[in-house]
């Protein structure tokens, strides 16, 4: 796979590119998860109560999506640079399944309930807690991918 080789070469030959990709990855998920968490905190009645969750979602959604793109591009680059390591890693596939679940959940259930006019409070809270749990699990999955090989 030429792309895989090229990316691997670029990242392996200059350590700083790998470091940069990691920084983009971390900075990106901080913005992405942080912006989603603002909606969740609102749905849990823990912050920004003067505004509706729908409005907060509208205000943050672009930031979430752009940051997620940065996270995914840098993540793919990191993956391609060490495919063999990730291939045998026990945690990495779990992280990917949880990530897929978090992404689908975020743009379906989470979005739907956050933009509802008057969702039942317990539904709103449950949806927000599941959202936080999914995204925190993705972060844990990323760290454990690096630690438990």
């Amino acid at each position, binding site marked *: 796979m030429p792309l895989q080789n090229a990316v691997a070469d670029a990242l392996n030959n200059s*350590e*700083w590119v790998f*470091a940069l990709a*990691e*920084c983009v990855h*971390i*900075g990106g*998920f*901080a*913005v*992405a*998860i*942080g*912006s*989603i*968490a*603002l909606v969740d*905190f609102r749905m849990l009645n*823990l*912050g*920004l*109560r*003067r*505004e509706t969750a729908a*409005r*907060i979602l509208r*205000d*943050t959604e672009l*930031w979430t999506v752009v940051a997620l793109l940065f996270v995914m591009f840098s993540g793919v680059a990191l993956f391609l640079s060490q495919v063999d390591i990730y291939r045998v890693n026990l945690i990495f596939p779990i992280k990917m399944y949880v990530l897929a679940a978090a992404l689908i959940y975020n743009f379906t259930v989470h979005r739907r309930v956050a933009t509802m006019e008057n969702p039942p409070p317990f539904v709103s809270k449950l949806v927000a807690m599941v959202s936080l749990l999914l*995204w*925190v699990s993705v*972060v*844990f999955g*990323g*760290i*454990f991918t*690096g*630690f*438990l090989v």
Partner: protein
Amino acid sequence: MPTAHSIQSIDFLTAFSESVLAYPIVLSIHLTCIALFGGMILATDLRLLGVAFKGLTITEVVTSLRAWKRIGGTIMIAMGLLLAASEAEKYAPNPFFWTKMIILGLIGVHALIFRPIVYNKTEELDRSPVIPTKAKVAAILSLVLWTSMVVMGRLIAYWD
């Protein structure tokens, strides 16, 4: 570095850094705080710049997130110090670690300077027809400082 050695030799810190699970769990909590707490800092800064949340007053954004930022920041720093102390001998000569600590200090200075004139004067900012320059300067410096924190944190691993 005798001091660094004696720090990491404290029993519970040694046990901590040798544990298969404790170290990555604490590191994950550290990063989770960066994500949750980072999002709140970003929200505050973007509101001060007038880029997002214009439907909310600056007062609402600053005051309703303040407690969470404090809780998140405390956990984040506690976890970070635990991580550093357990491997004190590795961290002590690391220039990225000390740069990160200096930036953390600068974040403290930022708070000392801007809390009395921006973060504790939000009602005044809300009354002003345009967002005053001091608020925008505070927001931009905050973004630069926190971005540098993340970058330095990651670069610590690259020094040997």
